[in-house]
């Protein structure tokens, strides 16, 4: 599974961090960082994160 975040859209709401803390987090400046190739066992979490992104900036490929 490949995760792509459109960083032009991302506004650092952080909702994805609550939904999938193993994949998304905030750096010290409050900006999003994420794991681009998380394990398959995290798919449900990542789908949830994509759903709750207010900017709909998270895409799952494969």
């Amino acid at each position: 599974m490949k995760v792509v975040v459109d960083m032009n859209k991302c506004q650092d709401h952080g909702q994805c961090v609550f939904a999938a803390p193993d994949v998304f987090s905030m750096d010290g400046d409050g900006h999003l960082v994420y794991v681009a190739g998380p394990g398959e066992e995290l798919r449900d979490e990542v789908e949830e994160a994509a759903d709750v992104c207010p900017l709909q900036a998270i895409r799952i490929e494969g």
Partner: protein
Amino acid sequence: MTGRAVVVGASMGGLRAAEQLRAAGWTGAITVVGDEPHMPYNRPPLSKEVLAGKASFESLAFTPKAAAADVEWRLGTKVLAARLDERIVDLDDGEAIRYDGLVVATGMRPRRLRCPGPLAGRHTVRTLADAQGLRDELTRPDARVVVVGAGFIGCEVAATAIGLGVREVTVVDPLPLPMVGPLGELLGRALLRRHEERGVRFALGAGVAGFEGEDRVTGVVLGDGTVLPADVVVESVGSIANVEWLQDNGLDLSDGVLTDERLRIGGRPEVVAVGDVARFPNARYDGVPRRVEHWSIPTDTAKHAAKVLVTHLVGADGEMAPFAPLPTFWSDQHEFRLQSFGAPVLGKDDVRVLDGDPEGDVLVGYHTGGQLVGVVALGGQAAATGAARYRAQLLKSPALTA
């Protein structure tokens, strides 16, 4: 699995419901009927990026999940009536569709002011067409803009207009502070100051008595007789649930559609409601049914309602836990963000600053009976990150009793 699930309303709630029916294991047909001409799109940017000319329809459209690729979309089609005893919905193109399961996802429409005066020049913001129409008028040189209603959408529109360079923006509200209804005085005052510093004017404590103008609006007449000159008026005075199509079924439609604690309506296990239109009791709080017009609710309700509906349709038993979402919302105004977790409105009598101060970035806690029931951050990222810390506490708090 045979049979058909019909979803009425093709916005975020309708899309999430269709997707979650598949996720819950429904393999029968799914038809989504919606009266707007578009596939589901994201509404929050309508009062922000779309008005500011920074978003295209493509950037607003949701991307439906692959599992929902076989859903039938009946767009530009209105449901005129539901016959719940017969399990039929009647469409405005004359067709009647029989269903096995029904999802109500018809959301809200803006309330309009019913006072005398011309209609031209008066706007609301709910749909893409609304936002595009308003944008064209806001960008007229020297437009004088009056926003009626100092709630979320009114404050966002006023902020966006200032950002666009509109010189005269006045927000009118009979209440004494912006957003004081949901957030209380402390943040209401902080918001008022921030808006005024950025050039938004306010006429508070005054209602609208009427509009001046012949063919189109030229002024807004307040209850005390003051006239505010206006070329463009935005009415953001609340919303009305789209429930007329459900009448004559013996339902409680007094404010949205009343559901039980599992989002079923009218005691019928084959009919559920999702999104803004659902008035549901939240097991996290006091059991009083409320509608919640936050962006997170269509997704939360769709997940729960789809499971409840599919469990019934496939004849499986097993009661699910009652629905108990943690409400969250945000609002972007000028360069600052409001971020809320929980139910501030239930703790408005006991409001305390948890961190920071109202002049800058601030984190505010709302309590009832000594228990924290909501937190709201106002300001930059630091405040929002602070609020996130309290989110875990809110999730763990015991349920309120009635």
